[in-house]
C-alpha cells in the first residue's frame, strides 16, 4: 500500500479512516512487544475524530488519515518526548515541532513515538533507556540506528511512513538494514524547530517509507522556510536536466567493506549502467577524513547542546540540597554511557589547549571536504556509495567497542558534514546465518537537488 493509494481510498470513500488505519494499529499491537519499535503507541481516536470533522467540512487534506510514526526526539504537544533518555523520561512537550504542525495540517495521524538511541547517539538503537529495538528480518540483530524504532515501524507494517532524524546516517543506515527508503534532506530544507538537538550543524529531520514516492510525498509536506529555525531556507526547485552521469569513490569504498556488500554495490552499479546511466569511478578528496571529522564536530556540538539538561528547568532532577551537586547527580543518573562519553569527548576537543588542534582543525577540513564535493558535482549529477560496510549486526556485538560502532557510519557522515541530500534505497540482500538481510544503495546529490535522488531512486526500484 502506497501513500497515494491509501489517501485515494479515503478520498473516494472506498474506505473509512478507521478501517484504513486499523491494520497498522493491529500489527503494532501484536508485534511491538517483540520488536520494541514504539516506546508508546498513542490512542488515535481523538485524532481520527478531528480528521473526520475536517473531512465533513470538505477540507482537502493531502495526507488524510495517513499513519505516521514519530521518533521520540520530535516534539508533539501534550505528549511525552524523551529522546530515548531517562533524563527526559517524564518530559511533556510544550509545543508542536514545525514538521508535526505541517503534517497535522495535512491530515496525518501520529500513531506513536518510536524508540531511538539515547539523544540519537548510536548506530544500533541499543542505547535507549527503553531497551533495544529488534530487526524484523532477524530479531537477534540490530535494526541500525539511531532512528531504529521509526524504521522498524515502517518495515514491519506498523506505520505507513515515519519521521526520524539523521545526524550522521541515523535514518539512512537503519533504512538500509531494514529494507526501506530513507532520505536525509539538504541541510536547512526542513525546519529543526521542535527537534531535540544533538549536533545542530548536522541534524536534519528525515522521512522514511516503503517507496521513494512515499518519501517524496512526505518531504514535500515538511520542507520549507520556518521563521522559528534561522537555518531553514525556502526550498527552491532547481531546473535540472535529467540525470546522466553518476560517480562513485572506488578506492575509498573498497576498504573495510564486507565482500558481499561490495558485490551487492557493484550489482547496483551494473543495474544503473544497464538503465542508461553513465556510472564511473572517481576520487573524492578528504573523504577518508570524514569519519574522524565527524567524531570531533558532532561531540563538540552535542556537549554544548546537552549542557541544557541541568535538572533545573525540566526533566529529571536529583535534589542533593547542594546546587552544584544537583547538576552532577542529575546528569549521572539521567545520561547513559554513550551520552556521557560524547559529552566528555566534546568537552575535550573544545577545551583550551586542544581547541585549535581538534575543533578548529576539523572546521577547516570540513570546508575542504565541502569544496571537494562541490567540485565533483560540477562533473557528476549524482554520486553513489554503499550505505554501511556491513548488513545488520548482532545485538550487543559492537556495544563495547565504540570505534567499531562508529565505523558503521563511514559512508553516511559525509552528506551531513557537507549538508547535501542523500537517500538510502533497498538494493537486495546479503546472507548471514542463512538469513537474507537487506542492504541499501546510497545516492547523493548537490544541495537542493532532492529531485535527482527521487528520479534515480524510482528508476532503481523499478528494475
Amino acid at each position, binding site marked *: 500500500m502506497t501513500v497515494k493509494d491509501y489517501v485515494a481510498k479515503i478520498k473516494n470513500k472506498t474506505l473509512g479512516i478507521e478501517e484504513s488505519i486499523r491494520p497498522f494499529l493491529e500489527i503494532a499491537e501484536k508485534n511491538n512487544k517483540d520488536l520494541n519499535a514504539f516506546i508508546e503507541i498513542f490512542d488515535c481516536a481523538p485524532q481520527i475524530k478531528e480528521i473526520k470533522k475536517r473531512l465533513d467540512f470538505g477540507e482537502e487534506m493531502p495526507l488524510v488519515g495517513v499513519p505516521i510514526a514519530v521518533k521520540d526526539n520530535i516534539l508533539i504537544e501534550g505528549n511525552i518526548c524523551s529522546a530515548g533518555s531517562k533524563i527526559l523520561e517524564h518530559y511533556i512537550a*510544550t509545543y508542536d515541532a514545525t514538521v508535526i504542525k505541517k503534517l497535522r495540517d495535512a491530515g496525518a495521524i501520529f500513531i506513536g513515538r518510536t524508540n531511538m538511541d539515547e539523544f540519537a547517539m548510536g548506530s544500533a538503537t541499543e542505547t535507549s533507556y527503553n531497551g533495544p529495538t529488534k530487526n524484523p528480518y532477524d530479531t537477534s540483530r540490530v535494526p541500525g540506528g539511531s532512528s531504529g524504532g521509526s524504521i522498524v515501524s515502517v518495515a514491519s507494517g506498523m506505520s505507513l511512513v515515519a519521521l526520524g532524524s539523521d545526524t550522521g546516517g541515523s535514518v539512512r543506515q537503519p533504512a538500509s538494514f531494514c529494507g526501506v527508503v530513507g532520505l536525509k534532506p539538504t541541510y536547512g530544507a526542513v525546519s529543526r524547530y521542535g527537534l531535540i538537538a544533538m549536533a545542530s550543524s548536522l541534524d536534519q529531520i528525515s522521512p522514511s517509507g516503503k517507496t521513494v514516492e512515499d518519501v517524496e510525498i512526505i518531504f514535500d509536506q515538511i520542507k520549507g522556510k520556518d521563521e522559528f529555525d534561522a537555518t531553514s531556507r525556502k526550498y527552491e526547485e532547481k531546473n535540472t536536466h535529467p540525470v546522466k552521469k553518476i560517480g562513485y569513490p572506488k578506492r575509498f569504498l573498497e576498504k573495510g567493506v564486507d565482500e558481499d556488500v561490495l558485490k551487492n554495490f557493484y550489482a547496483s552499479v551494473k543495474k544503473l549502467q544497464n538503465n542508461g546511466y553513465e556510472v564511473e569511478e572517481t576520487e573524492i578528496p578528504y573523504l577518508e577524513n570524514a569519519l574522524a571529522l565527524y567524531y570531533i564536530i558532532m561531540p563538540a556540538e552535542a556537549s554544548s547542546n546537552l549542557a541544557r539538561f541541568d535538572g533545573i528547568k525540566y526533566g529529571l532532577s536529583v535534589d542533593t540540597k*547542594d546546587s552544584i551537586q544537583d547538576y552532577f547527580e542529575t546528569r549521572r543518573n539521567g545520561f547513559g554511557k554513550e551520552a556521557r562519553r560524547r559529552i*566528555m569527548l566534546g568537552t575535550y576537543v573544545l577545551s583550551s589547549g586542544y581547541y585549535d588542534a581538534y575543533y578548529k582543525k576539523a572546521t577547516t577540513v570540513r570546508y575542504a571536504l565541502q569544496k571537494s564535493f562541490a567540485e565533483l558535482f560540477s562533473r557528476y549529477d549524482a554520486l553513489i556509495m554503499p550505505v554501511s560496510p556491513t548488513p545488520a549486526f548482532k545485538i550487543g556485538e559492537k556495544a563495547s567497542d565504540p570505534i567499531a560502532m562508529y565505523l558503521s557510519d563511514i559512508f553516511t557522515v559525509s552528506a551531513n558534514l557537507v549538508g547535501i541530500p542523500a537517500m538510502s534505497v533497498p538494493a537486495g540482500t546479503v546472507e548471514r546465518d542463512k538469513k537474507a538481510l537487506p542492504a541499501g544503495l546510497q545516492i547523493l546529490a548537490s544541495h537542493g537537488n532532492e529531485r535527482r535522488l527521487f528520479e534515480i531512486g524510482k528508476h532503481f526500484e523499478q528494475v
Partner: protein
Amino acid sequence: MFNKDEIKKLAKLSRITLTDEEEESLSKEFSQIVDYVSELKKVEVGVASDTDTHKNIMREDSIPHEKGVYTKKLLDSAPSTEKGYIKVNKVLSKKTNDS
C-alpha cells in the same frame, strides 16, 4: 594516553559523576577514540574559509510574542517553583565545595 585523573578532570568540566569502573573503561576508550580522530592533525588543507558558504541570519530584536503567554506551560515543566519563579538550591554559601 588518558589516565584516570585526566578523565576525572573532563568529567568535572562536563558536570558528570563517574564510577571508578567507568573511569577505568573510559580512559581506555577515550584513548582509542582520540587516537582515531587525531589523524586529522596530519591532514593538509590550503587556506579554507567559510565566508563563501556561511552567513549570519538575524531576526529583529523585538518582542516575539505577548508577554506571559507561555509562562505557565513552561513553569509547569520545572521540577520546583515558587511564586512564578523556578526554585533551586542555594548557590552561594559560606563553605563552598565547588573549588
